[in-house]
């Protein structure tokens, strides 16, 4: 699939958040944990764009914050360019040499810009801290990055409230690419923008990727955007990656029932009878607090479930070339589902 070692390799990553008050008495009460990310493994190759999709609350944001090293993982390893970075505490990761190589564009451009910093100061921030640039060198680099992201020079002196949504998004992107990262995490970079601006920003991201030789981890709700931009996609549900594979292939023939339901919810222009093709998932997601480790996360909402789904947690296995699904009854072998259940 990819030549040589991956740029980012995540193995068995877990993040558990303690829930509720810690018991003072009795001491022996077992604390509850919310499993936000529960044993996730995947890799991102050099120059690859990987899409991460899933519903709200499935752990996408926690996963990207673990990879961006803003959060400490509870378990598992994060290897970047062959080096383990998951063990460096997030509070001290600012001093790690990889800090500048993994950068992130935030979902809400307004919230991610300090209202008291001008656009210039915002873009200069990583250069000041990570590159120790100053004076003319700093101004030159900021101007260069601004040019790359299509920000005109007169906008650099403005404060965030004096910029439009698209301009703020550009400032956020400029700040992220200023220190020449190799992996750029895009956390729904266009969800807060108008549709017309979205297209322009997505185009900009595509151009930057080619020019700067970046790898993208692209988190999005917008499946059409993911299909267009991404080489590979990861489908996440309740802290687990339930399916991964080449974007075109997964979109054409989803193997996991959850992916199938997710894709059927994408509105398609012209399909007025869309209701009939839509596959609904009944009920609510299972609770992420102290989930039973052997039950499939989709159990209870899945029409294909059998006893096997409560007996053992399905793991990712190859369904087709490069396409993996964590399901006992993947759709690819839907012809004989009973056989699978029996086996």
């Amino acid at each position, binding site marked *: 699939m990819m030549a040589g070692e991956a740029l980012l390799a995540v193995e068995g990553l877990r993040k558990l958040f303690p829930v509720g008050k810690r018991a003072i008495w009795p001491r022996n009460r077992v604390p509850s944990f919310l499993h936000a990310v529960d044993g996730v493994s995947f890799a991102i190759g050099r120059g690859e764009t990987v899409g991460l999709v899933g519903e709200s609350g499935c752990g996408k944001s926690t996963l990207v*914050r673990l990879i*961006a090293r*803003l959060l400490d993982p509870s378990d598992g390893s994060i290897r970047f360019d062959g080096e383990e970075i998951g063990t460096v505490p*997030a*509070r001290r990761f*600012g*001093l790690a040499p990889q*800090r*500048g190589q993994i*950068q*992130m564009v*935030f*979902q*809400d451009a307004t*919230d*991610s*810009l*300090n*209202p*008291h910093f001008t656009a210039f100061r915002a873009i200069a*921030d*990583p250069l000041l*801290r*990570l590159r120790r640039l100053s004076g003319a060198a700093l101004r030159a680099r900021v101007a260069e990055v601004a040019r790359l992201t299509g920000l005109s020079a007169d906008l650099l002196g403005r*404060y965030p*409230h*004096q910029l439009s949504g698209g301009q703020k998004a550009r400032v*956020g992107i400029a*700040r*992220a690419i200023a220190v020449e990262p190799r992996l750029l995490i895009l956390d729904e970079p266009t969800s807060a923008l108008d549709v017309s601006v979205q297209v322009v920003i997505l185009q900009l991201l595509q151009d930057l990727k080619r020019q700067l030789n970046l790898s993208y981890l692209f988190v999005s709700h917008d499946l059409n955007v993911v299909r267009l931009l991404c080489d590979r996609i990861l489908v996440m549900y309740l802290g687990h990656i339930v399916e991964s594979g080449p974007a075109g292939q997964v979109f054409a023939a989803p193997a996991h029932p959850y992916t199938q339901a997710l894709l059927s919810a994408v509105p398609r222009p012209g399909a007025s009878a869309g209701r009939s093709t839509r596959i609904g998932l009944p009920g609510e997601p299972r609770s992420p607090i102290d989930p039973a480790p052997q039950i499939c996360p989709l159990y209870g909402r899945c029409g294909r479930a059998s006893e096997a789904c409560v007996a053992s947690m399905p793991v990712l296995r190859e369904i087709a070339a490069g396409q993996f699904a964590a399901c006992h009854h993947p759709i690819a072998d839907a012809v004989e589902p009973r056989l699978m259940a029996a086996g």
Partner: protein
Amino acid sequence: MNTLRHARYVLGENPVTALAFAGFFVLVLCAVFGPALAPYDPLASDTAQALTGPSAAHWFGTDQLGRDIFSRIVVAARLDLGIAVFSVALAFGVGALLGLAAGYYGGWIDRVVGRSVDTIMAFPLFVLAMGIVAALGNSVANIVFATAIINLPIYARLARAEANVRRHAGFVEAARLCGNSEARIVLAQLLPNIMPLMMVQVSLTLGYAILNAAGLSFIGLGVRPPTPEWGIMVAEGASFIVSGEWWVAFFPGIVLMAAVFCFNLMGDGLRDMVDPRRRT
């Protein structure tokens, strides 16, 4: 510079604020050049001229020892303003740091700071200030110290609340991605964001601090006579109001009131000056 131009814009837009700043400027002028500006020696008594009303020679009249009240008011500005500014600076500095640390880090720092501040707030504040000055001794440094302590909780609580709502803001995460240390995030990223609200508080507490210092002197716990100080002058003049010599207490009182008024009115202007979102 940009900031100066913005400050001029704020003052031009708001004449009341401009007036307050002008009043503050006059007070600062008196504080710096007071002894040179005063027409008489504030300590020189002249019993022949005792308790004369306002006249061309003595604008605000004379007190029971024949001292010129106008001169005493002008000279006292340095002491009163000094106590107010230093105590507010101390309360602001310590309170903002404690509050920021409590709000940003949470956990045990938050609990320790929160409970300590609650303990201070549990006392009637003026009585607490009296107690501190009485216990530590009657000196200007102790008045500053006492006034700072009773003003500290407001700053600590305000900074804590403002830092707490911003600790998970996107720009804080972004700052961490940019390689900022935790201390730098607190001081260079969060502090500027809470400055507008803090400045409003500064103007309010400056007025309160001056009243507090005057109040302590009024009950005999602050500066000692014959040092010119607004609170003492009001206290000394109070006994003459019944016998008709109203000016002895009236003029220091009105100046005290004007100073407090002026500080409070400055608040909005100060906020607008440190808040870039007010720029258009």
